[in-house]
């Protein structure tokens, strides 16, 4: 550091100076405790602040921002150095002649704030001046600074220039930032719109101004279309269509009273939502969302504007506004005319938009029965137009029904088309539209006991059928003449008290306790337990993860035991060959299962990983033994033995902390004999391993808290098409793949698409990270295109498409271990060691035609 400072004093080149200061900054940030050094560096920086080059001044300010002393008292302790007020020094450079330096000064100030220094309120006025700077980066940074100050001193009072009034600082800042929403540069506009969202302390009076834009026409006040719509609605006359002059201006306006550029917040969002750049519009919608979440009255007001955004030309904006609406839907009730506009979007051809809208409808409040009816009609229309939306629409209607039972009630006769006197024809039970209607009604009936009285006979029959086939959509109803089947456990029981959970625990404990049963008995017990667990997983979806996980482990154990029971160990060498296949297959299967256990479950902890690796090690040992017994000659064995010992060594290094838990286990014994094994001949090693494998005990697998099995379903292609996809051979055809993934962590890196051609050729496709959407926690949606190509075929044939989970066992092990090991370079994350099939494969019918000449 001294060197650097010394060079600094003699250096003339500005570039070198700037670089040196950079070095000092790096040094300073590495030594955050050393006050003296920091003071010294700050001192150096202050000296060079007067440099003529903007680069040097920039760096100085950066240094000050990063290292400037946080507390003045600390500064006073270090005698000899002048006590500097860092804020004042930086503040002086707000009026530097170079815009880059001004930006750096503001950034430094923000840096100080980030480091926990309380900025002075005086900065506010300085920053306000910078809002009218000529350069966009300065304005953008200034907006940020104003926001910071407004969050620090929201309640202090500032005077309004040119009048005697005073307002709260946060309101003033809000007004100023709102003004920046109509700035000339879109970068600043985005910044301003974003920050508006987080100013929740602003008073509601100002907040509501942002949506207000006084319209006038020839100096006469005009009502906005929103106001007119509202009036029409409240006067009972609905949507008469617009007449010429319907929006004719009403009252005269006093010319003096009109303020064309309100310094306040007037219409900021109106402008932001109409902006040219969609980035600004998205930012504005986000800000609206945040503000509306904190203020219900504002939510009510901004509704009209959000609904308008549903018609934006850019899909992202539409999607964003639908999501926003969903987030604030607890605070609002849609008017009928608004609902009308919302529902119009259901016909959008983009699937994302429609599904977002369904989600929105799930949690909207509708005010009238006409509204419900309208929604139902539109949803059914959507269903006929896009049959693939079936599940999403049913789900949507489920919530719509359960939220508005009283509104659905008067609609029931009409919906079921029942007649007081005549029996009507029984509707088709497989019609998705009819099911949709029933889902709505049954969910409403759950809380409305009078409703079942309106049902006709066949409705009850259909109820019974749907309750079985679509149990997730149809709730249990208290129907006359039949008992309520208490199926669901009330949710307030904790998992431990839950009988099914207890059953799981008990059955596992039974297995672990009965270790020294005769082989036959153990095998049977394991088989039964595995069966029990699998059935349990099917019945109780919340326990499915744990049950499957345990079952897989037990299956591995079972396989291992079976393999060791094989006769091959007793018969003479020449007869091994046939039987060794079984053992080898078992070893291979165990390996596969262990990889599944390690990578297909989310929530697996380190203690489970140890057990899994241990099991894998046993499988490898088995493999080694079997190969040793079946191969003649010693040479290949050398290599295998060595590899195996390396694995053991690796295991020991990785899980050294967990070794005490592995008492009496295979590895425990193995490590005891390690010195002997290292020097022993392969044949000897094999012998030792064999005895150890037989003696080793069955390790207890601790159950993780939260475990979920990763799963995936391919929605599209559905695999039902009889029409082959025709394309010219040698060229490519794009196949749309749409799949939902559950409980997959980091799907962007690990989920792959595999295409299997009839000739056995397999192709692995890496979907782009942007193809994954995240609609909810633990859920992902993959919508991508897969390119297929092949040489010409004589007739159409099916290719298989499925999803794979790629894994790399070294990536799970913490990096620090590698560094301690010291010999391995950090692994490349993307390398793939193997894959696990994640979904069922789907067949796609394709036909590459020979190219026409």
């Amino acid at each position: 550091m001294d060197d650097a400072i010394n060079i600094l004093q003699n250096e003339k080149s500005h570039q070198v100076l700037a670089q040196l200061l950079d070095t000092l900054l790096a040094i300073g940030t590495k030594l955050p405790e050393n006050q003296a050094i920091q003071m010294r560096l700050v001192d150096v920086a202050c000296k060079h602040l007067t440099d003529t080059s903007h680069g040097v001044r920039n760096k100085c300010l950066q240094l000050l921002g990063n290292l400037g002393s946080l507390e003045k008292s600390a500064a006073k302790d270090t005698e000899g150095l002048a006590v500097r007020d860092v804020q004042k020094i930086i503040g002086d450079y707000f009026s530097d002649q170079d815009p880059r330096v001004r930006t750096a000064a503001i950034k430094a100030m923000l840096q100080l704030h980030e480091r926990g220094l309380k900025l002075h309120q005086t900065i506010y006025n300085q920053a306000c001046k910078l809002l009218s700077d000529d350069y966009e980066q300065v304005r953008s940074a200034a907006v940020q600074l104003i926001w910071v100050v407004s969050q620090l001193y929201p309640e202090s009072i500032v005077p309004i220039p040119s009048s005697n009034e005073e307002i709260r600082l946060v309101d003033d800042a809000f007004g100023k930032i709102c003004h920046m929403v109509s700035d000339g540069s879109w970068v600043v506009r985005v910044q301003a719109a974003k920050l508006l969202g987080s100013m929740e302390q602003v008073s509601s009076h100002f907040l509501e101004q942002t949506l207000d834009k006084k319209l006038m026409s020839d100096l006469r006040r005009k009502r906005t279309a929103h106001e007119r719509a509202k009036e029409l609605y409240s006067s009972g006359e609905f949507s008469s269509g617009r007449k010429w002059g319907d929006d004719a201006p009403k009252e005269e306006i006093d010319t003096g009273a009109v303020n064309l550029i309100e310094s306040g917040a007037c219409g900021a969002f109106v402008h932001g939502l109409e902006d040219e750049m969609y980035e600004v519009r998205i930012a504005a919608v986000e800000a609206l969302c945040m503000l509306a979440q904190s203020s219900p009255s504002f939510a009510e007001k901004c509704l009209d504007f959000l609904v308008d955004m549903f018609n934006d030309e850019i899909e992202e904006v539409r999607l964003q506004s639908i999501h926003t609406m969903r987030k604030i839907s607890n605070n609002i009730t849609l008017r009928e005319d608004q609902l009308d506009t919302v529902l119009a979007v259901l016909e959008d051809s983009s699937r994302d938009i429609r599904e977002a809208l369904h989600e929105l409808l799930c949690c909207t409040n509708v005010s009238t029965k006409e509204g419900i009816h309208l929604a139902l009609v539109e949803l059914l229309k959507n269903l006929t137009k896009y049959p693939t939306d079936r599940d999403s629409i049913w789900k949507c209607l489920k919530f719509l029904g359960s939220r508005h039972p009283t509104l659905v009630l008067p609609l029931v006769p009409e919906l079921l088309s029942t007649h007081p006197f005549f029996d009507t024809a029984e509707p088709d039970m497989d019609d998705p539209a009819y099911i949709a209607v029933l889902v709505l009604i049954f969910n409403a009936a759950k809380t409305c006991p009078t409703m079942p009285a309106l049902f006709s006979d066949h409705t009850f029959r259909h109820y019974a059928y749907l309750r079985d086939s679509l149990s997730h959509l149809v709730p249990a109803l208290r129907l006359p003449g039949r008992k309520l089947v208490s199926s669901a456990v009330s949710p307030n029981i904790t998992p431990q008290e839950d009988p099914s959970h207890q059953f799981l625990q008990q059955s596992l404990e039974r297995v672990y306790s009965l270790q020294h049963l005769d082989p036959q008995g153990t095998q049977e017990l394991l088989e039964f337990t595995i069966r029990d667990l699998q059935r349990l997983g099917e019945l109780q979806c919340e326990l499915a993860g744990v049950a499957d996980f345990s079952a897989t482990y037990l299956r591995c154990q079972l396989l291992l035991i079976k393999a060791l029971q094989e006769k091959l160990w007793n018969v003479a060498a020449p007869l091994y060959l046939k039987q060794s296949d079984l053992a080898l297959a078992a070893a291979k299967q165990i390996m596969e299962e262990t990889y599944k256990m390690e990578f297909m479950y989310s929530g697996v902890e380190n203690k489970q990983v140890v057990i899994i690796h241990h099991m894998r090690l046993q499988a490898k040992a088995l493999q080694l033994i079997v190969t040793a017994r079946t191969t003649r000659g010693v040479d290949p064995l050398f290599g295998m033995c060595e590899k195996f010992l390396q694995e053991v060594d690796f295991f020991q290094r990785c899980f050294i902390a967990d070794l005490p838990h592995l008492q009496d286990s295979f590895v425990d014994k193995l490590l005891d004999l390690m010195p002997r094994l290292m020097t022993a001949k392969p044949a000897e090693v094999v012998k030792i391993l064999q005895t150890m494998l037989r003696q080793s005990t069955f390790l207890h697998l601790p159950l993780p808290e939260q475990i979920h099995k990763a799963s995936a379903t391919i929605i599209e292609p559905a695999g039902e098409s009889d029409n082959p996809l025709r394309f010219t051979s040698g060229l490519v055809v794009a196949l749309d793949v749409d799949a939902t993934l559950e409980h997959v962590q980091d799907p962007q890196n690990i989920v792959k698409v595999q295409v299997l051609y009839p000739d056995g050729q397999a192709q692995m496709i890496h979907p782009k990270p942007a193809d994954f959407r995240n609609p909810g926690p633990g859920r992902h949606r993959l919508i991508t295109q897969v390119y297929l190509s092949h040489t010409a075929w004589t007739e159409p044939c099916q290719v298989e498409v499925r999803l794979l989970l790629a894994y790399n066992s070294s990536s799970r092990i913490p990096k620090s271990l590698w560094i301690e090991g010291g010999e391995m370079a950090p692994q490349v994350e993307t390398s793939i060691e193997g894959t696990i099939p994640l979904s069922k494969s789907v067949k796609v019918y394709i036909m590459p035609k020979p190219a026409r000449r």
Partner: protein
Amino acid sequence: MPEIRVTPLGAGQDVGRSCILVSIGGKNVMLDCGMHMGFSDDRRFPDFSYITRNGRLTDFLDCVIISHFHLDHCGALPYFSEMVGYDGPIYMTQPTQAICPILLEDYRKIAVDKKGEANFFTSQMIKDCMKKVVAVHLHQTVQVDDELEIKAYYAGHVLGAAMFQIKVGSESVVYTGDYNMTPDRHLGAAWIDKCRPNLLITESTYATTIRDSKRCRERDFLKKVHETVERGGKVLIPVFALGRAQELCILLETFWERMDLKAPIYFSTGLTEKANHYYKLFIPWTNQKIRKTFVQRNMFEFKHIKAFDRAFADSPGPMVVFATPGMLHAGQSLQIFRKWAGSERNMVIMPGYCVQGTVGHKILSGQRKLEMEGRQVLEVKMQVEYMSFSAHADAKGIMQLVGQAEPENVLLVHGEAKKMEFLKQKIEQEFRVSCYMPANGETVTLSTSPSIPVGISLGLLKREMAQGLLPDAKKPRLLHGTLIMKDSNFRLVSSEQALKELGLAEHQLRFTCRVHLHDTRKEQETALRVYSHLKSVLKDHCVQHLPDGSVTVESILIQAAAHSEDPSTKVLLVSWTYQDEELGSYLTSLLKKGLPQAS
């Protein structure tokens, strides 16, 4: 005092025949050259005889700038350049250059072929006129001559509309033409940097209007069309060929795409096809969405919109038809209207303003029975809707632009006098700049105080820098140097260099002054007293007592001598050079006050 003079020949407190003369820094520029729709006599064109009665206009004008292709901004161009006579450059943007002749030709056809006017410009004249056009790009600075430069900014409004900055030296004028501050479906919003012109000439069509959000109108429009089409009805949208028509096309096209609708949309052929072709070519002039999607698909290559054929009007089923002209006064739109008016399932949507007397105006004002030619009475059963899609900035937008450009003065044109009055008052109140609104033929003169750039020699600057601290913007600094004015450029150099350059010998100028002092003591002692006095007063100057008895303060010499007549009076001789004038005069005044009494 340098001046900027502005004289509107048209569009002064009026809408139509925009034509504004600007004299700036000795250059004369004509902004726009339009026709007036309200007149068909000589008043339809600006009165060019104002510029010169005889002789060619080329001698009086340095250049002509056309802001966009609307006829009220370019309609008089062939008349002006070919019939009156102008051979100088005409500047316009490329889309304007491409579309302008189509519209001029159309205008000529209607005037000559339909109305049978004589003495009108010919097709050849339009061609000749367009040969004089120089195309400019956005933000490209074009040097018209050594001093005059112009620069175009994006203005929205219609394809290729631009605002122009005209600059001579450090004086500048910005002319906005027509502009739009809110983006629409195919164009972006006007934008200008903080160029701080001396004068901003802005349109003020909607000086007293603040408009509602565009989205409501769009939504209403789409909803109406959608409902009618779903009912199986036909929708007629009368439009003018360029501008709004394309916006509405894009709007419907994207809506059709989004909603996956199948009903056909037709566009009446002719002029429009050609124009659409140009819209396809000038993608950089459109808005963000169109520019972004251009890579996949040109938005103006309509998928759902097809060319209209007369026979389609009778075909059954729902359809949407765009037909010209926009006010339903003649042509195809009227023909279709007559066919469809009888059914209440159908709908006509008027997307713009209609002049009194046209069919469009009649049906908008609620008339249900129309008398057509031949005493036929047409009963209008179809629904009539009005939607305003206008592309001018509203009062708020104008204020926003003024705020962005930060001009010293504002001048309003292209609007009604009464409305301008209001806006003028607002501008003066909010920005504290003076605002003008001249009538046609009225001249506004602004005196400017342009800053004159002076080049300083590096040597001098470095010497100055070495002396003191950094230059501070807020404090004036005194600097010694020589100003050399040579062929209209100014340089500030050190005096030595100036002498060398000009080949002059240096003259020394010395001031001497005698100060009488009453002192009985000897000269040496007087000198010593003077020395100690000065030493105590002038602490930060170097005061020296030389061995020969004289005192120096910096380079000022003070000698004491006995008065020849009165020995009790001593004469102090103070001598200083011209450069030390400040210190010298201070010193003499100090000495004149006398020395303090010896203690």
